C-alpha cells in the first residue's frame, strides 16, 4: 500500500452506502416489489391467526366458493402466543384469532380484549343454543359470547387394529372398563430381551379422565381450593401412575415428549403413526394426522369407565375478534361462514374434530364419509359428548403456576422420588398456598 495520503473522503462513501441501504429498504416497500400485496390494495382482507393445519386451506377455499372473493382471507400462522400477544398489545389487531383453552379465553375476556359477539350473532341469526352446550366455558364470559368454535373433540381411544390382531387381543367394545384396557395394554407392550420397550400398549393418558372418573376434582366449585389431596384424587393418581411405574405400558411424559416434533406436542401421535403405540386417548382432530399414514389401520372406541362417575375430556378452540379491530363486519362474515353448514361439513369430512354445532355433528355426513369407509364408528365421538368436560380452571391462580407445579411434582413421581399420593398432597399444598396469597392480594393475579 502506498503512503500517498488519500484526500478522497471515505466517510462520504460510507455515508453513500448507508443511505443506499436505507433507501433500498424503503424502496422495496413500494408495491411493485411485493407482487400480490399490491393486488390486495383497497380490498377487504381478513387476517386469520390460527395453526396452519392443511385443513385451513380447504376451509378458505370453501369460503371463496360460497361467499365469493370480495373478502380476501390471509392465513397468518400462529406459533405460540408471543406473536398474537405482541400484536394485540402493540395495537395491531388481526380480524380473527384462535384461542385453545378455556383458561386463556377467560383471561382475555377479563382483560377486555374480546368483542362481545351477541349483537352480531343476533343480526346474522347464529344461535347459541345450536352449539354443544358443553362448550360453554370456551365461549362464554359471564353472559357475553366472546368466542365461537368451529370444531371440538371428545377424548376417545384410538387403537391400532393390526397390533391388536397380532397380539391376539379382542378389539375394545362399548362398556369396557379400565382393567380391560390395562390387560390389553399389557399384551400390546413388547420388550426385547433386555427389557427395552419396543412397543407401548398405550400413550400418555390425560390424568383428568381418570381423576374425574374416580370422583376427584382439581378445584372446589368456587375455585378457592385445590382438592387434589382428597382420598379420591390419591386413589386416582395411584392408578394413573401405575400405567408407567408398575405396569410400564406407557411412556413417561418426558419420554413421550422426547419423541415429539416440537414443544412437547404430539410425541404420542408420532409413535401411534409409526405403529409403536397401540392405543392413544385423544380427540378426533388427530384423524387428520392418522389418515396420512395409509398403512395405518385404526379405529376408535369409547374411553373405559370406572362405573363411579362417567367422564372424558373435551377440547376445543374458539375464534375471537379483538375489540380494537376496525373491520368487525368482514371478520364476522368469515366467522359466520366458519359456523355455516359448508365449513362444518369440511370439519367433519377432513377429520378435524366434531362440528361445533350439534345438528352438523349429528349429521349423516359426519357419521359416515364415503372417502374413508373404514371410519365407521364416528358415533363414538358423539356418545362421549354426554359426559365430556373441559379442563378445570380456577380464577384465583394462573394456569401457568398451576401447570408448572403439577408437572414438577409429577416429574418427581415419575422418577420415583415420591409416591403418587405424596405428589397429590404436595400439589394441593403448593397450589393452595398461591391461591391464599392471591386472594389476600388480588394485585398479584393478572
Amino acid at each position: 500500500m502506498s503512503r500517498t495520503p488519500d484526500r478522497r473522503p471515505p466517510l462520504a462513501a460510507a455515508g453513500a452506502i448507508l443511505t443506499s441501504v436505507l433507501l433500498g429498504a424503503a424502496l422495496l416497500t413500494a408495491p411493485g416489489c411485493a407482487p400480490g400485496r399490491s393486488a390486495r390494495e383497497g380490498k377487504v382482507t381478513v387476517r386469520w391467526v390460527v395453526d396452519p393445519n392443511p385443513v385451513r386451506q380447504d376451509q378458505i377455499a370453501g369460503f371463496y366458493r360460497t361467499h365469493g372473493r370480495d373478502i380476501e382471507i390471509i392465513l397468518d400462522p400462529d406459533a405460540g402466543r408471543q406473536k398474537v400477544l405482541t400484536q394485540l398489545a402493540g395495537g395491531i389487531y388481526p380480524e380473527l384469532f384462535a384461542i385453545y383453552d378455556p383458561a386463556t379465553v377467560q383471561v382475555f375476556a377479563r382483560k377486555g380484549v374480546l368483542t362481545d359477539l351477541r349483537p352480531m350473532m343476533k343480526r346474522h341469526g347464529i344461535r347459541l343454543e345450536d352449539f354443544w352446550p358443553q362448550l360453554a366455558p370456551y365461549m362464554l364470559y359471564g353472559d357475553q359470547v366472546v368466542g365461537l368454535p368451529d370444531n371440538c373433540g371428545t377424548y376417545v381411544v384410538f387403537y391400532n387394529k393390526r397390533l391388536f390382531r397380532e397380539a391376539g387381543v379382542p378389539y375394545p367394545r362399548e362398556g369396557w372398563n379400565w382393567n380391560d384396557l390395562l390387560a390389553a395394554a399389557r399384551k400390546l407392550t413388547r420388550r426385547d430381551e433386555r427389557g427395552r420397550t419396543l412397543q407401548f400398549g398405550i400413550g400418555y393418558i390425560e390424568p383428568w379422565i381418570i381423576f374425574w372418573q374416580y370422583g376427584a376434582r382439581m378445584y372446589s366449585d368456587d375455585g378457592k381450593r385445590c382438592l387434589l389431596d382428597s382420598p379420591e384424587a390419591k386413589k386416582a393418581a395411584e392408578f394413573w401412575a401405575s400405567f408407567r411405574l408398575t405396569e410400564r405400558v406407557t411412556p413417561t411424559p418426558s419420554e413421550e415428549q422426547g419423541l415429539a416434533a416440537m414443544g412437547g406436542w404430539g410425541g404420542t401421535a408420532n409413535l401411534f403413526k409409526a405403529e409403536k403405540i397401540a392405543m392413544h386417548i385423544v380427540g378426533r382432530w388427530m384423524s387428520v394426522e392418522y389418515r396420512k399414514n395409509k398403512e395405518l389401520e385404526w379405529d376408535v372406541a369409547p374411553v373405559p369407565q370406572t362405573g363411579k362417575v362417567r367422564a372424558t375430556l373435551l377440547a376445543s378452540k374458539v375464534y375471537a375478534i379483538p375489540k380494537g379491530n376496525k373491520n368487525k363486519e368482514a371478520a364476522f362474515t368469515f366467522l359466520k361462514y366458519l359456523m355455516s353448514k359448508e365449513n362444518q361439513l369440511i370439519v367433519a369430512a377432513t377429520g378435524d374434530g366434531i362440528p361445533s354445532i350439534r345438528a352438523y355433528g349429528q349429521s349423516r355426513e359426519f357419521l359416515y364419509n364415503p372417502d374413508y369407509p373404514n371410519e365407521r364408528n364416528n358415533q363414538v365421538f358423539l356418545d362421549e359428548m354426554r359426559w365430556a368436560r373441559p379442563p378445570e380452571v380456577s380464577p384465583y391462580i394462573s394456569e401457568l403456576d398451576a401447570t408448572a407445579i403439577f408437572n414438577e411434582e409429577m416429574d418427581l413421581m415419575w422418577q420415583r422420588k415420591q409416591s403418587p399420593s405424596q405428589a397429590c398432597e404436595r400439589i394441593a399444598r403448593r397450589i393452595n398456598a398461591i391461591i391464599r396469597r392471591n386472594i389476600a392480594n388480588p394485585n398479584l393475579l393478572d
Partner: protein
Amino acid sequence: MTRRQKAESLAALAFLAPNVAGFLVFTLLPVLGAFLLAFTNWDLFRPPRWVGLFNFVSLLGWHYDEYAGRTVMNDPFFWKYVYNTVFLMTAIPVGIAGSLICALLMNQKLRGITVFRTIYFLPTVCSGVAILILWKWLYNNDIGLFNTLIRQFGDWIGVPLQGPNWLGSTEWAKPSLMLMGLWTGLGGFNMILYLAALQGVPREQYEAAAMDGASAWQTFWAVTWPGISPTTFFILIMSVIGGFQGGFMTANVMTEGGPAGSTTTIEYYIYNVAFTRFLMGYASAIAWVLFLVILAITLLTWRFGGRKVTYV
C-alpha cells in the same frame, strides 16, 4: 480542550453518528420502555398503573406463611431458575478453552484444513429446531444413540451397562444440555473469532520468540495468549451476557423446562411470565434484576479482566 482535541471529538461524532442514531432509536428506546414497565402492573391490555416497587417485592421479598408455619420466599420459582441458569453457565470456561484449542489446531498450515473448519462449523450452521429435535432422539433413554452405544460397549467388555436417562432425569438434564452446547459450540462462533484473532498476532513476535529458542508452550503464553487477549475478553463478556439470558431455545423445543423445572432458566421464566401469565410488569422486574446482576459481573470482569488484556 485544545483545537486538536476538539477536532478529534468532532471526528468521533461523525464516526459514531450513524450507529448511535440507530442505536438510540431501535435499542435504547425499547430498553427504556421495558424498564419503565417494571414499575407498573401492565398486563399487556389494560392501561398500566404505577405500582412502585411492588413487582420487586413480589420477586425478591419473603413472607410468613401461616399454613406452612415458616417464612417462604414470595417467588420460590425465581431462585430455583437462577440456580439452573448459573449451573448451566459453568460450562462457559470449558467451552472457551475448547474453542481456543480447536482454533489453534485449525490455524496450522495443513492441507485440507479449510475442509475441517467448514465441517466443525456445520453444527452451528445447522443449528435450529430440527437439530434440537435430533438431539432429543439421540438422548432417548431406551433407543437413543448414546445409550445404545453405552450398552454395546458394556456387551463388549462383558458388563451390563445402562446409560443415564439423559433428558428424563432431574440429575442428568442439565449436564445433557451442557454437553450438547459444548459440542455444538466447539467449532462455532468462538472458534471463528479466535481464528480471526490469531491472524492479527504480529508474525515478528513469533520470529523473535523462535530466535530466543522458546518452546511451543512458552511461545503460546508469551506471544499468542497476550496477542489474542482482546478477543478472549470479548468472548468472555459476551458469554456472561449471553449465558444469563440463555436456555430459551432448548427449553422451548427440547424439555419445556423440565423435568421438574430442572432446565428452566431465567430467560424461559421471563418469557412465560410475560406471554403465558401476561404479567409484563413482573417480567420486566425480573429483567431488571437480571440486568443488574449481569452489569455487576461485567463491570467486575472489565475491571479485573480488562487489566490483563494487552492491546499491542
